[in-house]
């Protein structure tokens, strides 16, 4: 009887958990515990669209392959499209006043987008015969047979394309003449396109082409034996400038009535003094060109007689904008001068170079770094004079609009290129809160709950419903700058490609602080980039007065052997505490050691390109700790190109106090002709596993093989390493390995015939789940491998397990070679995958969810029970009790279990999970071009009341019960009295 009750209870539990996906959200809960931020990335090109009527907007293309239309008033995104990873935007322009034209993929794809809503109107594929630079010219007022053509030079051909429907009008191939076209010029009013180019870098060619049919009207050429460097740039309609191959001579080319005239001027005549690394800046100013050298920028005017006059010399850090045509044939351009915590913007007119038309000084946060780009636009003021607005791109990739000496809006678009993520706890709340505050908050709290009660009873007016939503979204609790009881409030520390560090509050995603790291700033000498972000100091017991800090590891230079830059940053304030760079060694690998010194600084090993290990922090204490533990320090390296996996330990003899020689312990060489490494995955170092035992049906126990030193390696046959469609099923083989990184022992090896990559995998506890493509079924598959320790298998006494008298306390060691068994199963999965991760909780008790970033830039939560290798077609009664699901060939995709619900994390690159203090809950942060944060409870929030728990209803019930008690008491008293009278 009791057994039956227990059974039915378990069944009920299982059923209830099966029916409802454990992650699900009501629509009005959006924004309650999640936030989503949309970004575009560092702007490459910007085109303004400011007509008198209608919205003012700016169209931008960015380094993240995003094209977007931004509101010029507030900087918000009207619409945005993220192109494919290989579809780099070359040029952007506006045609017919209503289409945005983009040229991408090295000039092979031309697309038109509807300006108001971003709908793609047409797309043309331009095939070329050879690689060349891409040029786009959209004439503003050229009409050919009721059509306005767009001219594109790409792949060695000049294409004319209708701007209405994207149809080909004509094509002229320049590849036969082996000429490399540098400029396309349309002189206003005429029906001729001028193509200016260079043949074999020693002959200058101009072509005049009929816009109607592409016929060649005229061809002139002139040779100069010196060769050219860089691009030919137009100065005026018939004059061009270019540098010669030695970069010391400016060539002025004049095309006059079919004759080409060359004139040489030495750069040293224009600029007195050093003139290294000279370039001509493409600024499109009429009659003027600008020349940049290592020391300065000079503006040179070309007179009608062909003389070069230096007009002005400015500092080389000045950023110059393109020319902007004003109404009366006048041209203006902007210069930005960098000052200390301010920038100076000046606008000049080409006709009157001597004085500034406009000069403004704008205060600028020095954490934004230098100005990288400037785009200007004009508007007509009420007094008919010209006003200017400038869009500037800063060193940290942020975008700002300046107008009338003020910053109108800013966008932190550096957050579109997050490289690495870590978290930090917030400071502990100081005790001593005023009574008034408590009373106020209590009153507010009660009021909120009364409103909520009204809402549930459907008594609330629409205004009150709005108020309820407002209260829920803006709960001041979640945005506090202190640690909370549940561990939901944290700082997300993000390292971006620009070398800037951001701290975001998990409550609402606001930027708490941001720092441009001085050690990672790219200078003219070297290009620096951030690599890794690690927790450096996490104060727990000893150093509670210290703020936590993070370690940023970067590289100064492009090659692997370039010196590394290290910097330690305070996680509360963003101050750079210590700048350890540039270090003398390079860094290819960062290993966080599980040791801490007395100030709770985490010990780190940095492995350089010569396989030497460098210990940080460089203190004698850290060195002595490391010396003591050095026998147990192991690491491995993956040489994907050579197909070798090597394991290392530390040599006893060390070269200096803090750097150690590595000794090669083992190596696994994969046969190059049949296997190529495409993916390696390890466990997250901070993952917590609650128990090694797994109780299965029939009160049996299995022991998980839990080792921190396990690596998953996937290899494919070299032929199948390309994209899908490049290999046949017969020639592609996917092999996966589980390898112990201390001994190099291959724990498990499995072959998937007819399968290929890309492989995305996640390794956690004793299992690995990986996603790959099955060519035979032509579907994606996901496989799971679970690995169990066989040596403890006979140890099956559940009672002993409960009491604690089992051998689980004997440590798991990689030195012993336990017998392991593996179980494996495969399932179909519908979508391509971009990233895969697993939920992590504080104690590891809660069941796990896989977080799968799909090709649609959504994050799907999939219960780990769906990828359990013990699933069978007809599970026995005992297995059903255990919660084992019947086997299906495909993994289910339940729309309610998308953690990103109706949002997309465009350009998704990674998913990070962070355990909260509350065991049931895991924090999820997904990043790409967009950022998304939420928290999930894989087994529901069994340890806390849900957000919509109604306290008011509880209070009402209690009050009702108390009243009922009184009423019944009075009633019974009266009855007793009556009985006594009887």
């Amino acid at each position: 009887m009791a057994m039956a009750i227990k059974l039915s209870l378990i069944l009920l539990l299982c059923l209830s958990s099966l029916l409802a996906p454990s992650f699900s959200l009501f629509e009005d809960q959006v924004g309650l515990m999640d936030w989503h931020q949309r970004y575009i990335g560092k702007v490459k090109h910007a085109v303004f669209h400011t007509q008198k009527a209608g919205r003012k907007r700016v169209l931008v293309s960015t380094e993240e392959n995003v094209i977007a239309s931004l509101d010029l008033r507030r900087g918000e995104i009207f619409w945005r499209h993220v192109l494919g990873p290989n579809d780099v935007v070359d040029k952007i322009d506006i045609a017919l006043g209503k289409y945005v034209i983009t040229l991408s993929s090295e000039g092979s794809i031309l697309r038109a987008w509807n300006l108001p809503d971003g709908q793609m109107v047409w797309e043309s594929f331009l095939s070329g015969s050879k690689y060349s630079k891409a040029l786009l010219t959209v004439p503003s007022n050229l009409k050919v047979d009721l059509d306005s053509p767009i001219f594109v030079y790409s792949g060695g051909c000049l294409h004319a394309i209708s701007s209405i429907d994207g149809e080909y009008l004509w094509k002229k191939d320049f590849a036969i003449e082996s000429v490399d076209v540098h400029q396309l010029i349309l002189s206003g009013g005429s029906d001729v396109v001028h193509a200016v180019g260079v043949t074999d870098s020693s002959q200058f060619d101009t072509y005049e082409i009929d816009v109607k049919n592409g016929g060649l009207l005229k061809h002139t050429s002139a040779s100069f034996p010196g060769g050219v460097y860089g691009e030919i740039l137009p100065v005026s309609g018939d004059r061009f400038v270019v540098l010669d191959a030695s970069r010391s001579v400016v060539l002025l080319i004049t095309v006059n009535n079919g004759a080409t005239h060359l004139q040489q001027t030495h750069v040293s005549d224009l600029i007195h003094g050093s003139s290294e690394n000279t370039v001509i800046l493409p600024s499109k100013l009429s009659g003027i060109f600008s020349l940049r050298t290592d020391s300065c920028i000079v503006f040179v005017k070309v007179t009608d007689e062909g003389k070069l006059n230096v007009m002005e010399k400015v500092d080389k850090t000045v950023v110059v904008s393109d020319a902007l045509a004003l109404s009366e044939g006048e041209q203006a351009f902007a210069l930005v001068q960098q000052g200390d915590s301010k920038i100076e913007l000046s606008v000049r007119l080409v006709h009157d170079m001597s004085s500034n038309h406009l000069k403004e000084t704008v205060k600028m946060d020095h954490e934004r770094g230098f100005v990288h780009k400037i785009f200007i636009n004009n508007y007509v003021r009420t007094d008919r004079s010209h006003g200017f607005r400038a869009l500037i791109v800063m060193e940290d990739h942020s975008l700002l609009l300046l107008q009338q000496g003020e910053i109108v809006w800013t966008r932190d678009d550096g957050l579109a290129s997050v490289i690495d993520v870590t978290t930090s706890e917030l400071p502990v709340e100081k005790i001593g809160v005023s009574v008034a505050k408590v009373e106020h908050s209590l009153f507010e709290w009660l009021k909120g709950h009364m409103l909520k009660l009204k809402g549930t009873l459907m008594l609330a007016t629409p205004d009150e419903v709005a108020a309820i939503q407002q209260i829920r979204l803006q709960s001041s609790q979640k945005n506090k700058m202190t640690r909370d009881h549940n561990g939901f409030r944290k700082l997300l520390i993000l390292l971006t490609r620009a070398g800037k560090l951001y701290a975001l509050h998990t409550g609402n995603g606001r930027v708490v602080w941001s720092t441009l790291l001085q050690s990672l700033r790219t200078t003219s000498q070297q290009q620096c980039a951030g690599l890794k972000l690690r927790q450096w100091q996490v104060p727990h017991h000893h150093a509670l007065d210290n703020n936590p800090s993070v370690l940023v590891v970067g590289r100064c230079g492009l090659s692997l052997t370039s010196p590394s830059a290290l910097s330690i940053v305070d996680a509360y304030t963003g101050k750079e505490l210590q700048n350890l760079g540039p270090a003398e060694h390079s860094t290819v690998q960062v290993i966080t050691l599980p040791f801490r010194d007395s100030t709770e600084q985490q010990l780190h090993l940095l492995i350089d390109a010569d396989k030497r290990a460098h210990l940080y922090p460089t203190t004698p204490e850290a060195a002595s700790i490391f010396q003591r533990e050095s026998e147990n320090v192991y690491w491995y390296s993956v040489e994907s190109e050579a197909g070798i996996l090597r394991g290392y330990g530390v040599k006893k003899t060390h070269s200096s106090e803090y750097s150690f020689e590595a000794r090669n312990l083992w190596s696994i060489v994969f046969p190059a002709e049949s296997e190529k490494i495409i993916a390696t995955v390890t466990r997250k170092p901070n993952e917590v596993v609650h128990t090694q035992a797994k109780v299965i049906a029939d009160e049996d126990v299995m022991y998980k093989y839990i080792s921190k030193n396990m690596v998953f390696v996937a290899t494919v046959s070299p032929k199948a390493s390309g994209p899908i469609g490049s290999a046949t099923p017969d020639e592609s083989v996917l092999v996966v390995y589980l390898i112990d990184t201390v001994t190099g022992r291959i724990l498990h090896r499995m072959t998937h015939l007819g399968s290929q990559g890309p492989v995305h995998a996640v390794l956690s506890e004793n299992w690995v789940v990986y996603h790959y493509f099955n060519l035979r079924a032509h579907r994606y598959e996901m496989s799971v491998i679970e690995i169990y320790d066989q040596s403890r298998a006979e140890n099956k006494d559940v009672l002993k397990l409960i009491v604690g008298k089992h051998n689980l306390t004997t440590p798991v060691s990689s030195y012993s070679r336990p017998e392991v068994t593996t179980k494996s199963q495969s399932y179909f999965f519908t979508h391509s995958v971009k990233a895969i991760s697993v939920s992590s909780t504080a104690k590891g008790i809660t069941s796990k969810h896989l977080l799968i970033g799909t090709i649609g830039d959504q994050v799907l939560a999939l219960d780990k029970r769906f990828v359990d290798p013990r699933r069978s077609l007809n599970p026995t009664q005992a297995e059903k009790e255990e919660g084992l699901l019947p086997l299906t060939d495909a993994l289910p995709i339940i729309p309610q279990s998308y953690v990103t619900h109706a949002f997309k994390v465009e350009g998704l690159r990674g998913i990070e999970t962070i355990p909260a203090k509350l065991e049931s809950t895991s924090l999820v942060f997904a990043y790409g071009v967009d950022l998304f944060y939420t928290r999930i409870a894989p087994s529901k929030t069994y340890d806390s009341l849900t957000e919509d728990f109604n306290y008011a209803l509880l209070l009402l019930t209690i009050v009702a019960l108390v009243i009922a008690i009184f009423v019944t008491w009075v009633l019974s008293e009266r009855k007793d009295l009556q009985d006594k009278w009887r």
Partner: protein
Amino acid sequence: MAVPRRSKPTLLLLLLLSLFASSSLAIATGNGGGYSINGRVKIPGFGAKGFGLPVKANNAKVILNGGQQVTFLKPDGYFSFHNVPAGTHLIEVVVIGYFFSPVRVDVSARNPGKIQAALTETRRGLNELVLEPLKEQQYYEIREPFNIMSIVKSPMGLMIGFMVVVVFLMPKLVENMDPEEIRKAQEEMRNQGVPSLANLMPGAGAGGGRSN
């Protein structure tokens, strides 16, 4: 989200037109190094369902081979990939709110112009490369409208209900009972004693023994 009103009717009109226009689909055409794949995405009820949908489909993407090429839909739903080598490829359609099956497309090198397409989820072959969603996706739970039953079923409701039963019905039950029977029942209770926890959970103790 910020889409000017005036553009929508024209868009809708185009879409409606495209629904009725019959078209022959040239699926693959030889072109220098590679082939082209042309197809079309059709979302049923695109015009009928109101103004919300064009914005949704505005962000539609068509993806070849898991990201090798990404393209977008024209207003009439057509899309094309260019420069695709011969072989078997996979096309995925991404529209928020709809579930599309990936499509297997065979581009033949031997006889250009002939391709085969099939949905990988249902293994249904396609004569034309017209992709329709298998189902709509609802990302949110539907909140149940208020009813008295949900209050009654909630812990608080159960508490009140139980109290009402005990207060008003129990005395009636006791009243109707024979005094003899009550005494009997009370005696029985006394004899049985307090039921122990161990009796309730025979599985734990017995199971442990058996497995040895």
